[in-house]
């Protein structure tokens, strides 16, 4: 069970497996989802008998979600009942790690720059998606350990950020 916020509206959502697909609940309302499959830049699925395609990329204001002709922005920070929010890629110690393997396609800062928590520092392309990796803390960029065009593995420390005091 997790809380998802889309366009300012929050709902408790769960996903579980069923005999011929999945059961998703949204604030307790139950939906049978069938034929879930990944397609170019998104996911296709059938709810009831309705056919849908959702396309997802990471944007500046959150996760951009287009379902057919409709677009939404999902808040990046989910409240997960089981884990602290935004765990991966955002260590409190100021090390920005790659949350998935991919290719660096943009670096927004230079060493010595002052950055704020949540500020996007690096753009990582993975699985055709552009993912903005944000600073976990307020601080100063101590070291940039990647360059544009580089392939990085999961967990690679992309940027090291020091607190002002350090």
């Amino acid at each position, binding site marked *: 069970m997790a809380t998802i916020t889309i366009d300012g509206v929050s709902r408790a959502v769960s996903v579980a497996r069923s005999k011929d697909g999945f059961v998703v609940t949204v604030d307790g309302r139950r939906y049978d989802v069938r034929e879930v499959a990944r397609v170019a830049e998104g996911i296709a699925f059938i709810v009831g008998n309705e056919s849908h395609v959702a396309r997802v990329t990471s944007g500046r204001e959150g*996760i951009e979600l287009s379902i057919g002709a409709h677009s939404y922005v999902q808040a*990046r920070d989910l409240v997960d*009942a089981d884990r602290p929010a935004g765990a991966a890629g955002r260590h409190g110690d100021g090390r920005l790690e790659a949350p998935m393997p991919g290719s660096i396609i943009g670096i927004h800062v230079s060493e010595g720059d002052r950055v704020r928590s949540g500020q996007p520092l690096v753009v990582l392309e993975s699985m055709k998606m552009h993912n903005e990796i944000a600073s976990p803390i307020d601080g100063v960029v101590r070291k940039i350990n990647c360059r544009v065009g580089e392939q990085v593995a999961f967990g690679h420390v992309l940027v090291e950020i020091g607190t002002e005091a350090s």
Partner: protein
Amino acid sequence: SLFKTLLVANRGEIALRVVRACREMGIRSVAVYSDADRLAPHVLEADEAHRIGPPPSSESYLRIDSLLGAARKSGAEAVHPGYGFLSEREVFARAVEDAGLVFVGPAPATLAAMGDKTEARRRMHAAGVPIVPGVVDALADPGAAARAAEEIGFPVLLKAAAGGGGKGMRVVRSGSELGRAFEAASREALAAFGDGSVYLERFLDRPRHVEIQVLGDRHGRVLHLGERECSIQRRHQKLVEEAPSPVLTPEQREEMGGSAVRAAAAVDYVGAGTVEFLYDEARGAFYFLEMNTRIQVEHPITECTTGIDLVQWQLRIARGEALAFEQKDIGQRGHAIECRIYAEDERKHFIPSCGVISLLREPAGPGVRVDSGVYQGWEVTSHYDPILAKLVAFGETREVARRRMLRALDEYVVQGVATSVDLHKRILRHPSFVAAKVDTAFLDEHATDLLEPAKADVPDLAFIAAALAAESGSGRGARATHAATNDDDAPSPWETTGSWEIGRAS
């Protein structure tokens, strides 16, 4: 001059449009680019490409010397100016001709004549083209104003002779208001410009914007290709255009077309041009506004309804070809609508939206034309006009075209930057648009409906999709925002199904 190499002195979708026309005509195309545009579609598609400077237009696309340098290096024999930038600048056309190249457009003298708005109005009046009725000389006193107003008909607009920018302007709807308004306008004009002289002309209340496409060849023939209605604007920038206008009668169309041809002929027009009119629907009268002496952004809707390729004809005319048809051969068939897809956020006062287009899915299929200037992965910057593409839908009737446009807008998916796609959907669904009740005040009048739509509830479907995306690892949501299942012992659905293979999930 059967030129074989042409330099396109522009960027974006219109440059790509010209490059495609060149390819279709066997002409070698030369693109120019600023540092921001090295990988722009027009550069990638052209046969040849030359850098002309840093991103700011003033240091690149507006630099006549750089453009002519690129023309020289590439051996270009002709230059197409596109729209905007230097396209209507007499000095550019003259420099191109002085360099011994063909300028794809009218003669410098024509650009000069139409570029000076007062001169243009005078010449149009002399050519018998209707202009907004009014007096040209300053009015001596309220009595003279009253006599002039009676003659012209209310409402009238009092204007400062020396000024502009709204200062000293007053709309007067009846004779009883005139005396006080005259004094106020004169006082305001004196304070603002040091000159209290005022004159007046007929006030057009919420006119429609209707324009006529013309083509003139180098052999003295000027024809018109019917009208476009471009009333839906924001801050004088067109958003939606259509052809034909839903309100003109065949007689008005013929009359307006004839006026446009006279206007163009009066300045020896060569090439493709557009005569813009303000149309007073209540009176059924139209008035010359200005002439655009270049290809227009919205030219595709005329191409769709007339079947005539305007950009190819620009090039043919520049090569000296005579128009291959006569006025009687030209007709509009069906209906076409264009939506300009801008990277901007109408909910934030239309501020341009910059960024990388992280996902792009453009519509296609029957009756749909997309003239795009971007691709997925392209970065929209603040250096240039925020137009991403022009989307055109055409069909047998206005209603077929309107519904088709909505279908196409539904197929349009852009992520990474805000766009006008949703605004266009609201415009095309608006009852006033459906009823063709549009004028230049449309967006202001319906601002509440169009710009601040009631926040729709977020359907559960969106949460279902978000949850599936998070679980499947699509997008950033994948790992940074893990939505756990409520039974930690159960395997993740994605692991147990062997999913993400194309096929059935079981």
